[in-house]
């Protein structure tokens, strides 16, 4: 199994990176925390349409790019490097995978064209093994209930809503204009969450109860697999920017990066980032190939990469010293993204528990 980057993946990376370098400056991501920037709304159409990322995972005969999870992973590495506030993971990966599974040709077409953005209405912290829902379908065929802390919902035109039934879950399609959406003051404002209230929202069954639970689980598993690559991107930015800064910064008449205490920490961090990269590549490759080992690969990647990204971001703040603690320096964007990502799709302990079951190491 190839754990490196292919030429195709590298060239996709180049185009995503050059677009983000032009259009996603850190100061505008920071401005999102004060609620006065439309960066995400400007950026997403460029990525979705100009680069075709909205339909990246959709087969060519359905109008998409026909790429695999490997390419999506590379896109997420770049989005992580820029802490870019776009709904690629929530819409183009998770929601789109459900729409394709439902074979809802019209919805897929709209998603590919970028005219519609979708989100799966579960808390961002819900993992493949732990998701649930309090949203119920009433006799009048409308949905009632609420879901909190949903990622990508503020960008979404439609919501995909898991609804429990006696035998499992249905997945319903709901127009975002039919619900009450309350933006959440989020730890990571570059991926702002929303609370959603369904008060008799009209709904349409997208996937019935025979496959709904599996569809949601698989979508969250794919999301978790690819989040690992975003975490690699975050960690990589933190390491690179810290190394670059410490090659310039002088104290005690010396380049700070020349102190052995600092060098050893950075060496260890480099090892950790490269290890995270191997784990994330393996998760992406197994997802792309539908490999039987993919559940292990996802749990492994999340158990490892989430901590690696947080560690890199924490080292980034600490080793930048005073400037790392300021609002003006972008380090905090990555700390907040990394910490939120660590909780996303379930925390590491849950992934380790999943692994323990999968590899026969019972508690």
């Amino acid at each position, binding site marked *: 199994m190839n754990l490196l980057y292919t030429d195709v993946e590298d060239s996709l990376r180049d185009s995503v990176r050059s677009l983000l370098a032009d259009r996603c400056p850190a100061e505008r991501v920071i401005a999102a925390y004060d609620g006065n920037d439309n960066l995400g709304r400007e950026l997403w159409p460029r990525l979705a349409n100009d680069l075709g990322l909205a339909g990246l995972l959709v087969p060519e005969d359905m109008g998409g790019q026909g790429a695999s999870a490997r390419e999506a992973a590379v896109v997420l590495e770049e989005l992580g490097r820029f802490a870019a506030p776009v709904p690629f993971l929530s819409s183009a990966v998770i929601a789109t995978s459900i729409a394709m599974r439902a074979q809802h040709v019209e919805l897929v077409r709209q998603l590919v064209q970028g005219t519609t953005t979708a989100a799966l209405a579960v808390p961002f912290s819900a993992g493949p093994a732990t998701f649930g829902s309090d949203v119920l379908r009433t006799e009048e065929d409308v949905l009632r209930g609420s879901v909190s802390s949903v990622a990508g919902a503020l960008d979404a035109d439609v919501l995909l809503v898991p609804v429990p039934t006696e035998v499992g879950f249905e997945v319903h399609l709901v127009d975002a204009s039919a619900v009450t959406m309350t933006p959440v003051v989020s730890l990571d404002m570059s991926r702002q969450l929303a609370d959603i209230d369904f008060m008799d929202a009209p709904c349409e069954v997208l996937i019935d109860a025979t496959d709904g639970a599996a569809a949601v689980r698989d979508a969250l598993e794919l999301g978790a697999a690819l989040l690992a690559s975003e975490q690699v991107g975050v960690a990589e930015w933190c390491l690179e920017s810290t190394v670059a800064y410490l090659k310039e910064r002088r104290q005690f008449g010396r380049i700070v990066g020349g102190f052995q205490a*600092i060098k050893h920490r950075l060496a260890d961090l480099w090892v950790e980032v490269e290890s995270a990269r191997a784990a994330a590549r393996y998760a992406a490759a197994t997802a792309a190939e539908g490999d039987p080992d993919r559940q292990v690969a996802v749990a492994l990647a999340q*158990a490892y990469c989430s901590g690696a990204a947080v560690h890199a971001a924490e080292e980034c703040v600490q080793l930048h010293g005073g400037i790392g603690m300021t609002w003006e320096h972008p380090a905090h964007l990555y700390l907040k993204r990394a910490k939120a990502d660590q909780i996303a799709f379930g925390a590491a302990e849950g992934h*380790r528990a999943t692994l323990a079951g999968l590899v026969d190491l019972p508690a």
Partner: protein
Amino acid sequence: MSDDEVADDLRRRVAELLKQHDPATTDRLEFLRARFDAGLAWVHYPEGLGGLGLPRAMQSVVDAELEKADAPDNEPRRIGIGLGMAAPTILAFGTDEQKKRFLRPLWTGEEVWCQLFSEPGAGSDLAALATRAMRDGDTWVVNGQKVWTSVAHKARWAILVARSDPDQPKHAGLTYFVCDMTDPGVDVWPLRQITGEAEFNEVFLTDVRIPDENRLGAVGDGWRVAMGTLMNERVAIGGGSAPRESGMIGVVADTWRKRPEVRTPGTHDRLMRLWVEAEVARLTGKRLQQKLASGEPGPEGSAMKLTFARLAQELSGLELELIGEDGLRYSDWTMTRPEIVEFTGRDAGYRYLRAKGNSIEGGTSEVLRNIIAERVLGLPPERRDDKDVPWKDLPR
């Protein structure tokens, strides 16, 4: 040729070898020599030297076919230094005659190799070594003391770094040799370690005569040659394409599965954290191997060794705690001289003690971190006040 075609061709070659030399009826050594001559020893080596000039990864095709046929192997664990360190160095720096003379018996295991690098006064600072090589016509006369030399008492040959010019700064005055361990001036003494075993030796070299034709690389170029050897060693220790749960994690996981009574929530958490790290390290090694498939080992190999050492130590420590009262017992403190070093061998106490060497041998973890910081990340080098001073003038 596509990979599949190459693999088919290799299978044909293996079938031919097996036809000509049926392992069931052929002498073991004869079979190994025939395998070498067929280019199936290490396919990434050049033709005529046991290989076919193919990508390293194709070796697995050959190995799988030979395993199916129950063919004898060259007992790689017994000749690890030869395979992992001497051979790549000879291949990279040796003359055609040296390659022809040394590689075949090295690979078949007829001739065991050891390494004469470290000295009592030159561990991490290898370039400060004091063993002298003085030229005398067509031979070199070597005097000095080496330590930490595994299998020296079994070895036919050694790779040796010695000081040929003390007037040069320390890195510049070194020369690399192949040393005949049967020379009467070579004296090998066991060096007992914290495990009770003498896995290593001290080697005293007194007027050992080495013909100039056994020099590897140019006079004064020994440091560069030695660095090539050490890069290969670090990849050999930390890299590889072992299956899941190989090495120390496999030992601890087995204990966990076989002994439900030792399980506690606290140890389970530690075990799973380490399982994750070990599996990620395995994937990282696999990724590194893919990167190196055709190229030379770079400083990245240092990362693998760093992780390997840390995990071996943490896991072997966990294992002792896990087994509780049994962890208070040790199998045997008797001094022995093992031929094969197995980090995961013997009992839990041995594994714990032996693992302490993993962060020292082949470059300490501290030196490896310096290497990563300086050569991968480009951070400023450590102060090296001794770098440009003639070696003979260094304080000692």
